[in-house]
């Protein structure tokens, strides 16, 4: 063949039917060592095997700094010289933490295994020497020949060899890969088509021994380069020979393919990024705080150790009682030992149990999300599901919501709702209207959401010529293919709009029956007529219209056109009638967020056709700038049109989407839409779902570029509020939306400066629409937002094309759509409906943030106040690391005495009821602004705990220093005070008192007193005097009134700042609260804009990113009774011609044969 292309990168070799060869090179791995070349087709997302669970899980757990730290502490405690408190004080909590965490990991991994197994178990047909045999997906091997039947998911990346369709064409749905639901074509090489097809396909395939050389596995979905060697010939392979794993075979009975890439080598899995552990901002801040506490602890321990050294040096030598127990070691050595002693003693200030409580609370919050009936979708029996259990509080802080369009905002169901014909508007958009009686139409399949009996009467009565002509146009002017099922025509269209229109025409009696290359057969009210198709002037996104030139059975030549209103209206005859009412109709449709298309006709004189067809043929053979040439020629034909009418199509939104978006916008969430769809569709949906107001201006293309390029001195990218736009464009920007397309975006993301500008600019706008973006670009956009803004990003989508962005965003939400489960499997949260986001964010998110903030603050307070007391005591015990508390108290304080009340608060607390959260979304901004958990809040918490610890020690010390009470009594006094104060603090935090909260508080206090009595009892002392030497101390202490008076006053003084601030808050908040409520009314304006503003018309035509099926139809490929094809082999030139997007079907190689 042409060209000698042994290029670099073509190293992957696949031998057809070479199972043994490929098996021998199978990739295997033991531990981290891998060898072999070809992956097997098993999905392994699990982490552990029974053997590796223990070491691996422990290894992972000890990667957490907190766990490692406490392990070190336990080890230190085992060293007798420095063991200030017994080893079990730390060991017990640590074991509990490790155990709970391990159980959780195990459960998650079992779940992963289960879902893996489900995928790996799926059946597929594989060619064996005994014929086709059904095996499981996991058994597919490179080089195998597979048979895929209709509606089956393709198990691995296959090279299409042949199919049961003519020309070995086959249709695939790529919804799981790029989110587009329209069908794509794949076509086998001519050589395999002709050689393998026939009566004995199976024998032919069994004898098939070609070798494929192609690229190494990569994640580029839209490119594939390879060579096909068979029978001494070499053929080039491209992306349209490849059936990707995860796509679904449609409209094709059987397709046969050669397995090229399996399992982790397949394009879709190569596209899946690595699983990244997501951490919330709160957790990061918490970790930093813990680090600060650690540093503080080390410093304190160091200072105290120095104190110990000085004590040892200056005082001890004279003090034989002490110096002898120190065994004459040097002061430095004593200081060194004391340092470690204090590390052990102060280690409880590290909130170890916080991490486990944090996880438990997260899990409960996740369960609560799953239990929410309001987020349960009856139709699919699908409750909400939190798959990642660490991100809850971030749900309350989302600043940017990046949403997919198809299947997320819209149902991807287009419905013909209204039309305008000859001055009349037919149909109404109210939901209530009863469906039409279409029993007279034998082709009716139902599904028409159009109800206007007048139109039906007119059509049936043949009263209105315009109406008939209008529907004739709809039935003729399209690129839809028909397929017969149960005696009814079903349509396959590249554009869902076209499908909706042709279906509507079918329901109303103008039934498109079938087409061949040159003819169109339609049934007009039961009367079958054949139109000769002379030319098809296909749609491109630049032309925004399409036309067909037909010869009616009566012999007239007619050009039927449909397209966006602007392009059609400017091509109408001069002074066309009904100009005013058309404008009004268009406006009306636009207000109802319907998508409009204008339909027009032009009778063409025979002479003009002859002349024009000659020009067209000339252009077809011309080399060079063929496309522009064709466009010009088309343009000549599409003029002097007569308007037939206007169609209005509803891009059906998911339920509650506009309300949800409006609510989220009020909550201050910036909603971006990222879609692979084209600009017009996205903009339309944007308007429809209240993402933009009707009078919002769109900034796109060159204008946007200028805005970004303007090197205004006022722009300071670093400051978050660039002033350039405020000056003159402020008014515009607040009602503007940015629209950017994939290629533009690619440029933008290249330089970080532009990205920052863009994100800053978007902050001034209502919304951002990114159209025609690839899955990878979606992720890039998310990355860009993450990088250049401090806010939390949330990505929501339903298809596999959203997986990247779902993974990249702080929080990924997957919709359990009708399509595959890829998005859900990679998401952190799974919802059934977009509208559930409202409750998820505004209620669950807000509550989680509130609860977790309180929880963390309280924990930090509790642990640091508790542990710092030792420090103050050091000044009175010669820096000897003498604990202030009984060792049992140290180990039980955080785990038993004070854990339940705060956990109850963390689960049940509600600052505002769910209803109020939804009514006043503005409250949500608390989380976005991080008002409840930020460095200054943390600093004040730590300061407060510092203060409390001082009080805890010095007040009892001051009171009891003049009495003859001993150390154990002081210890019990302080222990009780600390417990009372921390309990009082949690009582102050709780605003929502359920019976559980009350029970938890009572339980904790009871637990303290009972266990204290038990631990100080005779029985335990006699069992082990060494561990329970506080015998009788509590009885003695609690029978002393002085102790109680001390406890009481200490507790009160310790929490006094907290009570005072809260009281001041109450006193000061009253007037403020009033203001908040009055400001809550402002966003109601949203509604009024809708009425007031000038409505911009939106007219468009939603076609997939490439061209329509036009070429395919005119070339006749895949159509019956078409002329035999010309040489279809791939040439180097045609490969070069491939469009850069590589998305559409390139049918050039057959040549234009009109």
């Amino acid at each position, binding site marked *: 063949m042409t060209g000698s292309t042994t290029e670099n990168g073509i190293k992957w070799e696949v031998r057809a039917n070479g199972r043994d060869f490929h098996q021998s090179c199978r990739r295997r791995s033991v531990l981290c060592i891998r060898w072999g070349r070809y992956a097997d087709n098993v999905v392994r997302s699990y982490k552990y095997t029974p053997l590796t669970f223990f070491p691996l899980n422990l290894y992972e757990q000890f990667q957490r700094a907190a766990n490692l730290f406490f392990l070190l502490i336990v080890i230190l405690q085992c060293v007798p010289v420095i063991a200030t408190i017994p080893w079990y004080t730390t060991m017990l909590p640590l074991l509990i933490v490790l155990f709970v965490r391990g159980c959780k990991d195990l459960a998650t991994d079992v779940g992963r295994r289960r879902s893996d197994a*489900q995928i790996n178990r799926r059946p597929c047909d594989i060619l064996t020497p005994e014929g086709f045999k059904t095996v499981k997906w996991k058994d597919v091997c490179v080089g195998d020949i597979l048979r895929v039947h209709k509606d089956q998911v393709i198990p691995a990346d296959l090279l299409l060899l042949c199919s049961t369709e003519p020309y070995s064409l086959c249709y695939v749905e790529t919804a799981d890969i790029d989110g587009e639901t329209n069908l794509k074509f794949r076509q086998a090489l001519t050589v395999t088509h002709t050689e393998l097809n026939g009566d004995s396909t199976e024998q032919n395939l069994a004898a098939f021994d070609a070798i494929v050389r192609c690229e190494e596995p990569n994640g580029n979905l839209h490119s594939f380069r390879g060579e096909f060697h068979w029978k001494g010939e070499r053929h080039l392979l491209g992306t349209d020979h490849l059936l990707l794993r995860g796509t679904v075979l449609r409209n094709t009975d059987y397709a046969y393919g050669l397995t090229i890439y399996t399992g982790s080598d397949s394009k879709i899995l190569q596209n899946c990024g690595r699983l990244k552990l997501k951490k919330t901002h709160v957790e990061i801040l918490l970790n930093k705080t813990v680090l600060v506490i650690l540093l503080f602890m080390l410093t304190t321990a160091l200072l105290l150790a120095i104190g110990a050294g000085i004590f040892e040096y200056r005082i001890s030598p*004279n*003090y034989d*009682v*002490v110096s*002898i127990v*120190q*065994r004459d070691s040097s002061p430095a050595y004593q200081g060194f030992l004391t340092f470690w002693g204090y590390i052990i003693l102060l280690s409880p200030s590290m909130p170890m149990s916080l991490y486990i409580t944090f996880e438990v609370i997260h899990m409960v919050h996740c369960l*609560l999300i*799953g239990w929410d*009936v*309001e987020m349960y979708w009856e139709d*699919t*029996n*699908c409750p909400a599901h939190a798959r990642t259990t660490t991100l809850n509080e971030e749900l309350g802080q989302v600043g940017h919501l990046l949403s997919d369009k198809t299947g997320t905002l819209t149902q991807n169901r287009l419905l013909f709702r209204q039309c305008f014909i000859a001055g009349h508007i037919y149909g109404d958009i109210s939901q209530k209207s009863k469906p039409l009686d279409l029993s007279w139409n034998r082709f009716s399949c139902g599904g028409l959401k159009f109800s206007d009996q007048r139109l039906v009467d007119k059509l049936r009565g043949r009263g209105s010529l315009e109406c008939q002509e209008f529907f004739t146009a709809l039935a003729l002017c399209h690129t839809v293919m028909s397929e017969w099922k149960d005696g009814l025509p079903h349509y396959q269209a590249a554009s869902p709009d076209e499908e909706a229109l042709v279906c509507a025409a079918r329901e109303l009696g103008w039934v498109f029956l079938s087409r061949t290359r040159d003819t169109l057969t339609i049934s007009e009210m039961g009367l079958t007529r054949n139109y000769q198709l002379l030319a098809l002037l296909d749609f491109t996104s630049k032309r925004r219209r399409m036309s067909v030139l037909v010869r009616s059975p009566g012999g007239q030549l007619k050009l039927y056109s449909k397209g966006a209103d602007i392009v059609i209206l400017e091509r109408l005859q001069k002074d066309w009638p009904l100009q005013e009412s058309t404008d009004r109709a268009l406006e009306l449709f636009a207000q109802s967020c319907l998508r409009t298309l204008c339909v027009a006709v032009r009778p063409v004189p025979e002479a003009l056709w002859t002349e024009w067809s000659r020009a067209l043929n000339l252009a077809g053979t011309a080399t060079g700038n063929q496309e522009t040439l064709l466009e010009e020629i088309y343009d000549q034909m599409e003029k002097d049109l007569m308007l037939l009418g206007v169609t209005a199509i509803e891009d059906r939104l998911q339920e509650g989407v506009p309300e949800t978006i409006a609510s989220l916008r009020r909550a201050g969430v910036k909603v971006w839409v990222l879609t692979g769809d084209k600009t017009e569709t996205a903009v339309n949906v944007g308007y429809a779902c209240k993402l933009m107001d009707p009078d919002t201006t769109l900034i796109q293309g060159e204008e946007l570029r200028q805005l970004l390029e303007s090197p205004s001195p006022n722009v300071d990218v670093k400051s978050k509020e660039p002033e350039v736009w405020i000056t003159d464009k402020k008014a515009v920007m607040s009602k503007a939306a940015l629209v950017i397309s994939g290629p533009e975006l690619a440029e933008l993301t290249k330089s970080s400066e532009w990205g920052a500008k863009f994100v800053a600019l978007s902050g001034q706008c209502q919304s951002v629409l990114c159209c025609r973006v690839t899955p990878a670009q979606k992720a890039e956009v998310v990355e860009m937002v993450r990088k250049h803004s401090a806010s939390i990003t949330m990505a929501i989508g339903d298809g596999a094309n959203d997986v990247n962005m779902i993974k990249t965003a702080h929080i990924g939400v997957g919709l359990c759509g009708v399509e595959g*489960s890829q998005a859900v499997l990679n998401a952190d949260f799974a919802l059934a409906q977009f509208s559930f986001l409202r409750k998820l964010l505004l209620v669950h998110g807000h*509550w989680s943030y509130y609860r977790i903030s309180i929880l963390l603050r309280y924990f930090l307070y509790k642990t640091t106040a508790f542990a710092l007391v030792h420090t103050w005591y050091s000044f*009175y*015990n*010669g820096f*000897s690391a*003498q604990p202030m508390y009984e060792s049992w108290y140290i180990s039980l304080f955080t785990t038993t005495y004070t854990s339940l009340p705060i956990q109850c608060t963390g689960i*049940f607390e509600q600052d505002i009821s769910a209803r109020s959260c939804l009514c006043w979304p503005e409250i949500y901004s608390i989380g976005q602004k991080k008002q409840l958990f930020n460095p200054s809040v943390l600093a004040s918490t730590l300061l407060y705990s510092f203060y409390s610890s001082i009080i805890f020690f010095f*007040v009892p010390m*001051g*009171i009891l220093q*003049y*009495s*003859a009470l*001993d*150390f*154990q*009594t*002081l210890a019990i006094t302080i222990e009780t005070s600390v417990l009372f104060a921390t309990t009082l603090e949690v009582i102050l935090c709780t*605003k929502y*008192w*359920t019976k*559980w*909260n009350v029970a938890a508080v009572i339980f904790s206090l009871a637990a303290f007193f009972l266990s204290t009595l038990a631990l100080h009892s*005779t029985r335990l*002392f006699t069992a082990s*005097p*060494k561990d329970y*030497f506080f*015998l*009788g101390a509590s*009885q003695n202490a609690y029978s*002393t*009134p*002085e102790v109680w008076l*001390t406890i009481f*006053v200490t507790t*009160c003084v310790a929490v006094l700042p907290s009570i005072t601030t*809260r*009281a*001041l808050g*109450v*006193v*000061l908040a*009253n007037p403020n609260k009033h203001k908040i409520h009055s400001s809550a009314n402002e966003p109601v304006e949203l509604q009024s804009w809708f009425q007031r503003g000038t409505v911009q018309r939106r007219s468009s035509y939603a076609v997939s990113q490439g061209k329509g099926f036009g070429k395919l139809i005119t070339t006749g490929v895949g159509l019956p009774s078409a002329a035999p094809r010309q040489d279809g082999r791939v040439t180097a030139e045609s490969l070069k011609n491939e469009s850069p997007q590589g998305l559409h079907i390139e049918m050039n190689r057959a040549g234009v044969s009109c």
Partner: protein
Amino acid sequence: MKNEGETAQRPDNTAFTQQRLPAWQPILSAGIVIPGFLVIGLAFIGIGVGLFLTSQTIQVLEMDYTGVATDSSCFRCSMTSSQNCTCEITFSLDKLFTGPVFFYYGLSNYYQNFRKYGVSLDYYQLSGDTQYFTSPQSVCSPYSYDNQNRPIVPCGAIANSMFNDTFELYQIINGTKNLVPLDGKGIAWWTDYNIKYRNPSFVNGSLANAFAGTVKPINWPKPAYDLDSTDPNNNGFLNQDFLVWMRRAALPQFRKLYRRITEGNYAAGLPAGNYSMTVHYNYPVLTFDGRKKVVFSNVSWMGGRNDFLGIAYLVVGSLCVVMSIIMLIVYAKFKFSDDDA
């Protein structure tokens, strides 16, 4: 996936799962908070005044007998290292010191709460387990064995450093010294005396034999079984003074109960008059700049004299009252400005 669980996954509609548990939501307003603060403040002030006045009625007499000053009577004893030094301290009471009078000894700059010191004892030994008489636990070292490798009982630093000054109190009536009877019974905790510390069971009817093979702590003049020659029941680990000493103090400045004055003519208290106290000065503290003192005090329902407690209550109460006033001002200002608007 969704076809697997055929049963409806509809969540339960319960108050708990839907987070609609009945709850009490205290709603605070300025009308509650400000009077609340005032009431709490006044309550504290009330308690504080009560405590302070009670504390004032308690009589305390403190006397330092360390003998640092050259003119003090115990100066001589503080200088010598002789074991049997006595000195005399005289004092006079101008009114009745109401009984029962508690007689404390106090030490300052003495770190009984030093950690290594504090753990230096063997609870097994002290609970009378003779197994630990022959081999004391290692925490006692270096007071486990003497230099001839004989086990020390009771072992450890606390026991070894037991306070061993003794006092005799005389009332001087017309130049004659009348001995004031001091009651040394029941000055230790009940749990210590009855549960925590146990003497070893007698061997051949004698406590001393039970201690056979052990040596007394190095600093002790007499072995444990011979601490109180007057009362054979007050010996061994159940000696009251020993028990009091073993209950270590919380702070470096502490006092411990020595005796109570409850008997005879002095049951109602110490009458006004002149007193003399004979100190058997044995315990050296000057090496570490420590001080020794004796304290006489009576008690009320709230314990010994403690002005700090009452003051603490008064301060907290006043703070609350002040806060309530501030809040009232703030509230009034806000309220009025809000009305103006």
